[in-house]
């Protein structure tokens, strides 16, 4: 079936845009860069919508199941007869969904940035980087080859590095960008080795073949990779865990999450794009992409995914309750939501109705993209007005920025999982899946959803209520229409995205799922969410000393949560003390003094020798004659007495 080439255009348009803006932007398009970027992205958004329509309604399905369709394939780097990186495009439900999400959110962000970044000296560069990021993200979701995905994976990492470090004069921004890149790079190391293992045993890098070879029981490859084991764990498990490590790094799963909060140093729209909707879910996407292998051949690895996700969700939620920087709160909530998606995948099975978790995860990914980016953009316009990230500088803003206020509220309700907002539906699916397969995880998830509601509304109140607005913000105004329109669009989506029939489209095996969540099941989580909201209302709707008192009563727990459980400090210790002081410094010293010293020593020794023997050249002719004679004598001794 011929999916026309326009799919290839979806990533290529931003790429072209990047090159144009990157090379000539500074000179020629310093003003018009934003418009160019936005329009080009609009184009690819439309294209991806067309693709989605094509796939879901026209050509995607054959005999009731959505097919994996590889649109085209081009051999880019032939390692060996069997292994090669092919640049290809693979279309399946999740790809299509991701296409829509990425292009759409990115478009919103482009639009928003028109106002937000106005007057920035490196405006063109900014849009160039945005396009670069969009390109690599799209490339990532379209990849048909595990090495291709790794390639774009790295590109995504570097463009996020560039965007976080966009304000390069700010040392904190530079540090944050470095941190983000290095931590994810470390995770990618795992991914790379995982790829090496997989490719070695399955003799291919192509997703289709790889999955096919590693899933159907009795295939020689599967047997080989299962029989090979290291430290008592089968090679397959190792490979999948290592790949998951890469995913965990990008998706900020515990303990590789530390870069995400710092990444908030970047411009807020960037956070909305990268660290809410798109890049951070790459990990989820990766696991989903390899889901058949996980589900069919290696449940153990899937267990690890489950618990990592669940713990991260809970852990992040706790921390989120204590943070005072609004963007950090959002960051931790992101981490927590992604945790949801992860364990949803974890608890899912492959085929039929048991694939509920998979579907739920994807569904949540879909909805989360909208409300979370909405939250970030909202926060963006707040910061744009207040020029601060701290809660204490805010409060009572609902009068000053009504539109933002409403949108933000909608988003909060959505994330809290209050019907009929979009978050509700996806969360229900996930909880259902968890309930069916793993009660412990279900419990954690339930509690976490309560917490979520609580800290989101803590955030909401302390921005828009608590204390009367200090008036000197008033003259700022709420920002240009280019900033408001995206908010509104996203708000609408956050409201209604929940009604999209994802279940008919996305599932692990491609066949639609018909499970309905019973109303009775929804009561408990919704009740918890409401409870959280009420508690938050009690505490934060007006400024009072109650929160402080509770904090002091919680004492240690509160304190350690405030300090993010000292994970950063731990990392700092490892890098500074161990890598630098215990390995780097000795290595440098060793090189300077031992290795190089040895070379110099040789030279010195030669010098000493020549000084030692200089006496023989005494300048007395009689000595010379004597040595001459000695030479003769020596030869005589050597060759007459010692000979043979």
């Amino acid at each position: 079936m011929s999916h026309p080439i326009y799919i290839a255009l979806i990533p290529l348009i931003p790429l072209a845009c990047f090159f144009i803006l990157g090379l000539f932007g500074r000179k020629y398009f310093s003003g018009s860069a934003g418009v160019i970027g936005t329009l080009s992205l609009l184009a690819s958004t439309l294209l991806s919508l067309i693709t989605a329509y094509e796939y879901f309604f026209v050509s995607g399905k054959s005999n009731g199941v959505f097919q994996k369709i590889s649109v085209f394939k081009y051999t880019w780097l032939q390692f060996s007869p069997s292994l090669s990186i092919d640049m290809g495009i693979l279309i399946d439900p999740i790809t299509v969904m991701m296409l829509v999400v990425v292009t759409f959110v990115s478009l919103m962000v482009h639009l928003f940035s028109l106002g937000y970044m106005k007057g920035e000296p490196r405006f063109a560069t900014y849009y160039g980087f945005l396009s670069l990021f969009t390109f690599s993200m799209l490339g990532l979701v379209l990849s048909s080859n595990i090495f291709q995905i790794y390639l774009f994976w790295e590109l995504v990492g570097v463009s996020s590095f560039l965007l976080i470090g966009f304000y390069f004069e700010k040392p904190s921004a530079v540090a944050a960008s470095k941190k983000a890149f290095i931590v994810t790079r470390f995770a990618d190391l795992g991914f790379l080795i995982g790829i090496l293992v997989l490719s070695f045993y399955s003799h291919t890098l192509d997703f289709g073949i790889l999955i096919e070879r590693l899933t159907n029981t009795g295939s020689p490859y599967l047997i080989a990779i299962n029989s090979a084991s290291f430290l008592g764990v089968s090679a397959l498990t190792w490979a999948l865990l290592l790949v998951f490590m890469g995913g965990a790094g990008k998706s900020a799963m515990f303990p590789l999450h530390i870069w995400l909060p710092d990444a908030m140093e970047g411009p807020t729209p960037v956070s909305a794009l990268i660290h809410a909707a798109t890049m951070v879910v790459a990990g989820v996407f990766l696991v989903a992409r390899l889901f058949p292998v996980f589900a069919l051949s290696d449940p153990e690895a899937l267990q690890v995914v489950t618990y990592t996700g669940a713990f991260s969700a809970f852990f992040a939620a706790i921390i989120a309750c204590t943070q005072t920087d609004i963007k950090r709160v959002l960051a931790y909530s992101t981490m927590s939501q992604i945790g949801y998606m992860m364990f949803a995948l974890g608890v899912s099975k492959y085929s039929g109705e048991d694939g509920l978790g998979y579907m739920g995860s994807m569904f949540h990914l879909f909805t989360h993209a909208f409300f979370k980016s909405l939250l970030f953009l909202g926060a963006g316009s707040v910061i744009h007005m207040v020029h601060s990230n701290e809660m204490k500088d805010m409060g009572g803003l609902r009068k000053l920025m009504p539109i933002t206020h409403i949108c933000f509220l909608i988003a909060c309700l959505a994330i809290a999982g209050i019907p009929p907002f979009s978050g509700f539906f996806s969360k229900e699916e996930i909880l259902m899946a968890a309930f069916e397969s793993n009660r412990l995880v279900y419990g954690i998830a339930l509690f976490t959803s309560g917490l979520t509601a609580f800290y989101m509304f803590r955030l909401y109140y302390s921005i828009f209520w608590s204390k009367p607005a200090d008036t000197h913000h008033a003259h700022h105004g709420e920002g240009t229409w280019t900033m408001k329109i995206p908010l509104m669009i996203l708000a609408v989506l956050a409201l209604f995205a929940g009604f999209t029939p994802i279940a008919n489209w996305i599932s692990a095996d491609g066949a639609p799922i018909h499970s309905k969540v019973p109303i009775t099941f929804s009561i408990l989580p919704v009740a918890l969410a409401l409870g959280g909201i009420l508690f938050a209302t009690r505490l934060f709707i007006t400024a009072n000393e109650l929160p402080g008192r509770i904090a002091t009563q919680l004492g240690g727990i509160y304190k350690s949560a405030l300090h993010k459980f000292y994970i950063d400090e731990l990392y700092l210790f490892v890098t500074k003390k161990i890598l630098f002081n215990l390995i780097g410094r000795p290595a440098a010293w060793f090189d300077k003094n031992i290795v190089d010293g040895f070379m110099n020593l040789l030279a010195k020794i030669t010098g000493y020798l020549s000084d030692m023997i200089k006496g023989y050249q005494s300048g007395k002719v009689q000595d010379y004659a004597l040595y001459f004679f000695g030479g003769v004598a020596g030869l005589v001794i050597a060759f007459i007495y010692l000979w043979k």
Partner: protein
Amino acid sequence: MNEIPLNQILFLSIGLFFIGAYGLFTRRNMITMLMSIELMLNSVNINFVAFNKYLYPDKLDGVFFSIFVITIAAAEAAVAIAIIINLYRSHHSIDVEDAGEMKY
């Protein structure tokens, strides 16, 4: 009449040779050193003549050789003494110890 056996003559020449060498190593005076070298050369001459006389009486190579050696020794001595004289001009001494500026 009974004549001196060859090996005794060789003893003599070798003795002479080493005496000359010893003189060369030990005497400070350059002229004396030259004389010691003459001793060594003479021991060589004795060798030649003796070998010629005892081993190869029908040929005269050895004798001729010794004559040439004597001649050349003379020439050598002449040049050497000239040099020593010139050295004396600059050093005001013919003690070999004094002519040891260049070393190491």
